């Protein structure tokens, strides 16, 4: 009797058993088959992983040495020389070997203490662009997203039009990454998507947008954010742009930021008050003081912080009054903190401290203790 006949016989025999037994047997067979398959799969992935690691350990140091020589050495390599030297190490160029070259180059670009102007020669010689373009064309969403990140890291502006294709993708992660990439890589209209942001920004959006604005700012190419602050109907974006204007000290935006202190939206007003301080907009100090007593607490905190940053020396009596009328610990603490560094002939901090006792006195002691880093 063959195995097949045996199995058929068992199959029919089990069919005569109670349902419980049938389910149990089926489940046991299922579990055993899956367990064996998974074990084989695990062995394969571990084997492949080990093989890759061994190979990388073998050739990666050689690639690093070559790239360091190209980037930081005295010899100037031509593209065909780079290609020849690289293929001498890795053999025939394939997608995996280009990926390895990109990883090594990025490692050197971001982690090496030395900086070079020759990154592009490696990019061109090993045809990174063609490789990344193919990745963008023929891979799934998540790989496309990671490819876009590589474009950002390599600062490959030539693929900007490709990036734009994904800026309206249905895949929201890919769409978001494409828009970030466009902001960094586009030379014509990097800010076009600022007008198209719908809904609230997440904290992550803010962090990324700020990162790319910072790149423009470092190259002195950052546009004046005032026009978007002025016209954007997206409250969340407006808050972010006001924050960015403050962080990048775009002094030209003072007026439009001040206008936003009259907004009906508390978060916009709060950010505007805060940014005026960073923009050293001392000309609006008296206006902020006027508004203080009719504002919500988060706005009051922002006003006090701004007045501290303006540090004109003219707000001593305001700070004193604000402290004496403050009802929450957070506000008292903020005013005490500002008064500690406030430049004036009159020592407001000591004056206020002298009149306090109990926990309020501890707030002053806390603030003047240098050992406490985060007040």
């Amino acid at each position: 009797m063959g195995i097949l006949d045996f199995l058929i016989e068992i199959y029919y025999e089990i069919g005569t058993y109670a349902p419980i037994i049938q389910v149990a047997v089926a489940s046991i067979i299922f579990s055993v088959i899956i367990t064996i398959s998974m074990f084989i799969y695990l062995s394969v992935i571990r084997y492949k992983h080990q093989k890759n690691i061994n190979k990388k350990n073998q050739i990666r140091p050689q690639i690093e040495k070559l790239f360091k020589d190209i980037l930081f050495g005295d010899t100037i390599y031509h593209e065909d020389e780079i290609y020849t030297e690289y293929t001498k190490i890795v053999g025939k160029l394939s997608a995996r070997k280009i990926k390895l070259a990109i990883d090594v180059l990025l490692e050197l670009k971001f982690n090496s203490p030395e900086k070079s102007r020759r990154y592009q020669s490696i990019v061109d010689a090993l045809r990174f662009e063609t490789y990344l373009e193919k990745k963008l064309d023929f891979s799934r969403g998540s790989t496309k997203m990671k490819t876009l990140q590589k474009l950002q890291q390599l600062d490959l502006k030539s693929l900007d039009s490709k990036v734009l294709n994904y800026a309206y993708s249905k895949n929201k992660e890919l769409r978001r990454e494409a828009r970030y990439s466009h902001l960094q890589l586009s030379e014509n209209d990097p800010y076009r998507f600022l007008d198209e942001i719908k809904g609230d920004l997440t904290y992550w959006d803010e962090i990324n947008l700020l990162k790319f604005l910072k790149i423009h700012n470092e190259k002195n190419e950052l546009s004046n954010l005032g026009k978007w602050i002025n016209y954007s109907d997206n409250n969340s974006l407006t808050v972010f742009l006001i924050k960015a204007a403050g962080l990048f000290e775009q002094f030209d935006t003072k007026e439009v930021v001040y206008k936003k202190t009259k907004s009906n939206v508390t978060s916009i007003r709060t950010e505007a008050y805060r940014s005026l301080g960073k923009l050293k907009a001392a000309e609006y100090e008296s206006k902020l003081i006027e508004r203080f007593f009719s504002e919500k607490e988060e706005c009051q905190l922002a006003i006090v912080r701004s007045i501290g940053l303006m540090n004109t020396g003219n707000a001593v009596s305001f700070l004193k009054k604000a402290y004496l009328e403050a009802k929450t610990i957070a506000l008292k603490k903020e005013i005490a903190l500002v008064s500690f560094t406030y430049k004036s002939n009159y020592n407001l901090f000591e004056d206020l401290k002298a009149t306090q006792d109990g926990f309020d006195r501890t707030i002053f002691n806390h603030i003047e203790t240098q050992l406490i880093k985060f007040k």
Partner: protein
Amino acid sequence: MFGEDFFEYFIFFYSTSLIASYLMLAIFSMITIIRYKNYNSNLDDETLYNSDIAPGISVVAPAYNEEKTIITNVHSLLTLEYPLFEVVIVNDGSKDTTLEKLIKEFDLVEVPYAYIERIKTQPVKKILKSTNPLYDKLTVVDKENGGTKADASNAGINASVFPYFLCTDVDCILARNTLLKMIKPILINKKKVIAVGATLRMVNSCEVKDGEIVRVKPPKDFIPRFQELEYIRAYLLSKMGWSLINCVPNVSGGLGLFDKDIAVRAGGYDGKSHAEDMDLITRMVSYMINNRQKYKIEYIPLSCCWTEGPPDVNILSRQRTRWAAGLLQLFVVHRKILFNPKYKKMGLIVFPYAFIFEFLAPLIELGGLISILYLIFFGKINWDLAALVFLYSYCFAVMISILVVIWDNITFKYYQKFSEVLKLIMVAFLEPFIYHPLIVFFGIRGYFKFLSSKELAWGTMTRKGVETS
């Protein structure tokens, strides 16, 4: 006759439901893990690390009689990679030299600290800061012993300054990028994420240098190795799976990142609870539901925390007895949530699942054992059927364990060698015979101790300490 049939069918239905739920969780966790792998990269860490606007995080770690590990682990916490964070260590009235060691190592002095008791705790004696600028992120809160980790954690939350806090144990070693990885679900979600968890593993046989894990190895001793597999299963399969449908039952006390405002409004940890982690999540979720606010609890599939697992049965017994008592206490304290539609998923999925498949499981297993003994005694047992039913659950348990080992290897290959992975797989075959019966026994003992109101210790565990090179 009817009684025996009913019990057989009940057990079969119960175990089949459990198996079905595990299969469902396996699919859910696969989706979340693949999604996480696809849409997260190390570039995100770099972006966040270099950001000027990253939100601050307070790392809160309570310590009670931790003199053996405290110094290494505080050094480890201070070297976390994140642009804005502080470390708050709470000495909960230790009877050993924990505080003295901290003072000496980190040059601590008492400071006038504006400590606000937003959550009620046992009195704080003093707050200390370092005179060495290298340790300016460190704050040590010295308080009277509150009897539970929860009370100490609350004091740490009160002393913390940032909007998010990461709760951990001082015997834990965190991966350097823990904060970068764990804050991301909070930053990327439009819905309010009130808590984030990540996987814990055993530090027992790992190589540690300067408070950092340099080589992950499976524990040599069997008890912690069983626990390693159990943890990976609990985190990668169960919690990752539940996170897909926003039904995470708890974020571990060993490693959890929380929204401070919500945690404080929910009343913080319950100082009397012995399952303070599940209790906190329960109260935070209740707060959100009662205030009609949308929320999410997220898990990431990365192992970010290595903790010293109980090295022997005695210490395991203490730990598990406390956890079981805590579970029963949770159902007593929050009984109004169970099967209550007002609490939505918490009342209709999370609590019922925990009640039926976690709380009742040891009792049902005990019932099964008694009935087998009864049948054996009266010669009524059908050995073929008994063997079949045993194989049914055994094969499934092994399959699930191997599945999570694969998940673990897909997420990140923590073990360097395949032989180390095999060591973990080996315990999957032994677990139902050795480890599981112990866990069932300690569970029942925990329920008994809770019901007989016997006092349970702080969660103290005799530490061997980690060997550092």
